[in-house]
């Protein structure tokens, strides 16, 4: 019996090492292949200038238009989704505490929406735009992407809020707090690090998605100066360049991927830094 327990322990330990290793390996292979193919094409010119004539045939220029466009798009849509999603998550966890059935209904719908592929959101937005005769624009992209990441924001924040112990919530109530005071003075503070993670998660999804913006943002070689203009984005820049027959251009697609990964890395590190500073007040129950 004792011996069996020991083998069992070995087996599961081995399994854990194996899965950790395989995840690490996959990540490494992806990063390596992107870096290996893309690094030779990465240049200062690429991230500091917009495409010049013939850029897509291998001539000089850069993809600053797509970098800025993607940043506008994902920051805008994350902000929009957060502004709508945060109150909804708070509402579900604070105002509807007595209404558990209704809340689990909302959760179910959000989980369904989370699972809907982004191309469906793109197609939906496209239909609406045609119906109202709207042209592709940065704004249309922001709205579409925010619709697509809204369920992610809400459910991710919701999961964090659910970890707040009942006792803390009730202590706050017994001090005579109103529900909105609990939401913004207590739950928000207690969950701040988790909320940042939720925002990051949706930002990452937003900046990397190509399908939802394929029909909604259009594509241009210029940096957009208003919400009504079309805009380029990194995922589409990668997509267009990757389908080119010219090796030079395909290489640039990988370089653009590196830029995309770097942006996400920088945002993650920044938010880590800021959450650390606020985490000290969090109570660990």
């Amino acid at each position, binding site marked *: 019996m004792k011996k069996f327990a020991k083998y069992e322990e070995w087996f599961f330990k081995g399994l854990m090492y194996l899965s950790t290793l395989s995840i690490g390996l996959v990540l490494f292979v992806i990063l390596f292949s992107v870096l290996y193919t893309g690094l030779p094409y990465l240049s200062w010119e690429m991230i500091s200038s917009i495409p010049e004539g013939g850029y897509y045939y291998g001539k000089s220029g850069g993809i600053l238009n797509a970098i800025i466009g993607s940043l506008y798009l994902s920051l805008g849509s994350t902000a929009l989704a957060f502004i709508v999603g945060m109150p909804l998550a708070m509402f579900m966890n604070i105002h509807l505490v007595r209404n558990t059935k209704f809340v689990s209904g909302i959760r179910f719908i959000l989980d369904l929406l989370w699972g809907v592929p982004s191309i469906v959101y793109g197609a939906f937005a496209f239909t609406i735009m045609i119906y109202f005769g709207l042209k592709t624009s940065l704004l249309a992209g922001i709205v579409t992407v925010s619709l697509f990441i809204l369920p992610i924001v809400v459910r991710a924040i919701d999961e964090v809020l659910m970890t707040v112990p009942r006792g*803390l919530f*009730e202590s706050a*109530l017994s*001090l*005579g707090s*109103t529900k909105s005071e609990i939401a913004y003075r*207590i739950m928000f503070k207690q969950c701040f690090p988790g909320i940042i993670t939720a925002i990051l998660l949706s930002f990452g999804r937003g900046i990397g998605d190509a399908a939802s913006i394929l029909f909604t943002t259009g594509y241009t070689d210029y940096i957009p100066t208003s919400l009504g203009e079309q805009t380029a984005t990194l995922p589409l820049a990668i997509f267009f360049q990757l389908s080119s027959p010219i090796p030079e251009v395909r290489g640039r697609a990988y370089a653009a991927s590196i830029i995309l990964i770097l942006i996400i890395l920088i945002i993650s590190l920044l938010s880590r830094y800021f959450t650390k500073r606020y985490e000290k*007040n*969090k*109570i660990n129950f």
Partner: protein
Amino acid sequence: MENPKIKIENLNLHFGNQHILKDVNLEIPKNKITVILGPSGCGKTTLLRTLNRLSELNTEAKIKGTIRIDGSDILNTNEDVTVIRKKMGLLAQRPYPLPMSIYNNVAYGLKISGRQKKKYLDKRIEHYLRQVNLWDEVKDRLKDPASALSIGQQQRLCLARGLAVDPQIILADEPTSALDPISSQMIEEKFVELSSNYTLVLVTHILRQARHIADHVVFMYLGEIVEQGSAKDFFENPQQERTKAYLQGQFY
């Protein structure tokens, strides 16, 4: 009893189809310590949480009857529930400090009541922290997060935080069960001190504690009030068989 602070009449509480509080009639004297005793699961916590209207957060709860504070019903009223809750401080079984600094934990109640001036807050916070014997331990680190305190200190902080709301009643649900003997004794002594200005309702399993600080005792069993009376009568001359059995430690 003359002018009871709290007067409970025909209080019944169901969770779903479970009858938890059965026809509770109770008077709680003003500015005294009332101790609620009873075996585990008899409804002490539920009764306490019904007093400050936390029970009703439970979807399943059905509550009937009246609870009067200074003569006015707090169950069947249009009065804002936050106003009612502010009349009572609740000290839970384990401390739940708010996710903010020690200073802001105590300032919280004052701030949500619209007191913002720093000078005023500083003075009051020192006052409340002194009142729970915490000031000397934390005066140099008021800006530190409350989570950095020990459990005993956190419980005293929670008491200070409750006092800062300026309640008339303090509800305490086994407030010393997570504490060491010294911290427990500190809380007990505080309660005795506070009872000259506040009405205290204390749930405890510790008979020694009850004998030590109770002015008035209530004994509950399976959701009913079996016996209540002054501490002297209750401990020296219990009337009911079940009370006697409980006091002799025959069931918990």
